[in-house]
């Protein structure tokens, strides 16, 4: 224990004094309960420590090896988007009173976090049109998976239907969670880029716990939630919608279209892409399902003096109280990212959230017509939000490699997860992309096309 390190404040004299208080001669004596036979000897075979400057430099060099959306114009979406991140978001989440705290178990000294989460829950309710929302889930995919197991538990049925137009990776996660609970997952095929309602009619039955769809769906199309909700409820199932909350600035909220549960990812609101995580799942439902909800909930109450305050509430649902009878095993959630999303939602506000959602649709509509003018086949004629499917008639990997040379991160290669859509690309156009960038992209793709 001779090492000096800036994170370890004890001096040699501190250590000696403490050892003598404890009544041992060496620190090693404190580890005597570890069986001699397995005690680790020698040094861990890991890299030696680096100084702050040297490590920063090394990691900056590794970061520079990656193509980032600040340097390149990105048209890649597929569940993770390059949106406007108000600069204040990072200032707020950098306040260490927030990021160095943990779950607000002591409300008297955690009112800041608790109130911020209460506000987050309110904003999610406003956007989704649902009665209640929790304090966050890991991400949109696991939130959808928890919704899948929750509807099965609630209805005591053993089958869930999920549309093929739901994000393929989210569908995989739904399947993994369902396997744990022995729930059958059946995929509803897509037709013309949306859930095939005839197939849904065929597949749904009295053992269907719920129907899971995405809004807008993976292809950017707007699903007929009203109809799917009616079909689900007719059979006594619960209707689960995975919604991009930013799109809800202009789209009718799922709560008005029959959803029992709305989940999704708040990443579009101020959260960096960060190679896929951490993002911020949200989970909202009708009041009826309140006691079945996974995760933490913050509620309003009063103190002895009658002052308004906030606490973690309805904890009888949770693992630390109910153990094996809990509604979910979730403990740590995504609180700091829920805070980030709250700041972004606040900055955008009532007017800005409409404006940003509108710009996404308008720019995507422009991109669609630009592709069509250039002779590309843009698939699916339904209403879209900020993504379109373009038939490039060439391997997307090759096209994207050429685009990268020209300063673009190209769209998602749909052939990777939808074999019938090989040579088709999913192009995302957010408010961040300018008309010039869109025109240039189409031009470059035309060039590779030729």
């Amino acid at each position, binding site marked *: 224990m001779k090492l000096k390190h800036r994170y370890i404040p004890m001096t040699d004299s501190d250590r000696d004094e403490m050892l003598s208080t404890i009544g041992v001669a060496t620190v090693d004596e404190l580890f005597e309960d570890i069986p001699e036979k397995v005690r680790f000897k020698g040094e861990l075979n890991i890299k030696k420590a680096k100084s702050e400057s040297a490590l920063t430099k090394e990691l900056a060099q590794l970061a*520079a090896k990656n193509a980032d959306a600040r340097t390149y114009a990105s048209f890649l979406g597929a569940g993770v988007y390059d949106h406007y991140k108000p600069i204040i978001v990072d200032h707020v989440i950098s306040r260490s009173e927030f990021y160095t*705290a943990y779950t607000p178990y002591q409300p008297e000294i955690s009112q800041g976090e608790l109130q911020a989460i209460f506000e987050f829950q309110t904003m999610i309710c406003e956007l989704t049109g649902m009665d209640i929302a929790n304090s966050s889930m890991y991400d949109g995919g696991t939130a959808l998976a928890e919704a899948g197991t929750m509807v099965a538990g609630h209805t005591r049925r053993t089958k869930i239907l999920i549309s093929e137009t739901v994000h393929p990776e989210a569908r995989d996660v739904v399947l993994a969670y369902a396997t744990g609970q022995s729930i059958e997952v059946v995929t509803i095929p897509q037709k013309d880029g949306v859930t095939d309602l005839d197939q849904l009619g065929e597949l749904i039955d009295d053992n269907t716990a719920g129907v899971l769809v995405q809004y807008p769906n993976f292809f950017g199309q707007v699903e007929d939630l009203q109809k799917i909700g009616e079909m689900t409820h007719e059979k006594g199932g619960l209707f689960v919608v995975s919604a991009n909350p930013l799109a809800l600035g202009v789209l009718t909220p799922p709560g008005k279209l029959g959803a029992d549960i709305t989940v999704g990812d708040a990443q579009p609101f101020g959260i960096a892409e960060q190679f896929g*995580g951490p993002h911020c799942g949200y989970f909202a439902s009708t009041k009826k399902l309140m006691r079945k909800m996974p995760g933490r909930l913050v509620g309003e109450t009063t103190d002895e003096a009658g002052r308004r305050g906030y606490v973690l509430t309805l904890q009888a649902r949770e693992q630390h*109280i109910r153990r094996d009878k809990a509604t979910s*095993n979730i403990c740590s959630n995504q609180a700091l990212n829920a805070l980030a999303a709250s700041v972004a939602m*606040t900055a955008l506000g009532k007017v800005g959230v409409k404006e940003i959602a509108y710009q996404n649709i308008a720019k995507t509509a422009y991109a669609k017509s630009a592709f069509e003018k250039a002779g590309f086949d843009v698939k699916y004629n339904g209403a879209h939000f900020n993504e379109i499917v373009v038939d490039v008639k060439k391997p997307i990997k090759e096209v994207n490699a050429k685009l990268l040379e020209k300063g673009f991160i190209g769209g998602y290669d749909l052939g990777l997860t939808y074999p019938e859509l090989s040579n088709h690309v999913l192009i995302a156009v957010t408010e961040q992309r300018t008309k010039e960038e869109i025109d240039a992209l189409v031009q470059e793709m035309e060039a590779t096309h030729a």
Partner: protein
Amino acid sequence: MHKDNQPLIFEMTKEGRIGYSLPELDVPEIDLSSHLPNGYVREESAELPEVSELDIMRHYTALSNRNHGVDTGFYPLGSCTMKYNPKINEAVARFPGFANIHPLQDESTVQGAMEIMYDLQQHLSEITGMDEVTLQPAAGAHGEWTALMMIRAFHEANGEGNRTKVLVPDSAHGTNPASATVAGFDTVTIKTNESGLVDIEDLRAKVDENTAAFMLTNPNTLGLFERDVLEISEIVHGVGGKMYYDGANLNAIMAKVRPGDMGFDAVHLNLHKTFTGPHGGGGPGSGPVGVTTELAPFLPKPILVKKDDQYTFEYDRPQSIGRVKPFYGNFGIYLRAYTYIRSMGPDGLKAVTEYAVLNANYMMRKLESYFDLPYKQHCMHEFVLSGRRQKKLGVRTLDMAKRLLDFGFHPPTIYFPLNVEEGMMIEPTETESKETLDSFIDAMIQIAKEVDENPEIVQEAPHTTVINRLDETKAARQPVLRYVKEEELVNA
């Protein structure tokens, strides 16, 4: 902390104020009603706040002033490892080449990120003594579930689908039995003996050919090292079960003993605890899982591999449990953990553990005569006191925890583990100075004296916080989970 009530952001709204900056639309306007299907254009606006940028900064600054973090003061919350969160981690995570990269970019454009992931896996593998590591799980509980799903798939692949039981000590975190349930297992609880350790006889009586796994936290939640761990491994392996290591307390054993060497088959780590995540007010976390070669075929997809000096994700894994999370886990968090490990090095991690354990033992010995100490042996990185003696005088552990707030400390974890009456679980961590430990010890001793001499001051605590004790019963009986405008409340 400021005593005034902070209004909700919704109560600060004034129509016409904005806090955003969007560019002018540079493409033709569209008509939403002709673009979207009938009934799908939102009619009622989402009632988000209408405030200026300064309003937002003042609001959240006011909220932050009503919050206690590690940077505010000592935070000995047992089992949560509330150590200092290094600032280099925050700087690195914000490099554009890490923060602004998309998970579905071509692999050739993210080799720097993948190199770090690969190197981190190697480091965690060495620290835990496990053969292979996945970084996918988003948090500790998610890691538990992932590993249990792998164990389940392993048994099923061996034609042993009959193994439906997961054994969990009564001192375990609530996530253990909850994760077992979510993975489709039944939980069997194993008793703790008079030394605070797993009751071996109870374990022997309950393991059988239907045992899938035994989940053990070591050191356990009493802060005690399970010194019979090798015998436990033998018993569980003897009936064909798997040993699962809950890594919540890894801070106590780095470079001292490795889960893989103790006979564990699967391990999860809480990178937001031992490896300075940070905790974020409740998350995000990161919960990598390490396993033996035998369990490796069942790892979640994709697997990161290195081929000809290029990193690539491998998806062709027929026995995999599938995908547990979209993309590749919480990159932004494990990047911080990687930065921390590289800041500490092998001797640094060893020192972390030694000082974490030294600090806990020092505090325990200083406090043992003032409170009940149920287990007398040396502790590891944390220890549990009982408030039994004070309860007889009419003061509960909850009261003492609230009194600590008046001294500027975050209280320990209380009423956990469940097998200690009026428990207080104290984890100082290695990043605290002796002066801080001493001032906390002094506060605890003063509170113990107050219980004898002036119990009201403890029973009525806290006295200095922005708000007094809150009515939790009211919150649960009449749940108010969102803000509703006053006029809407009147109309409702």
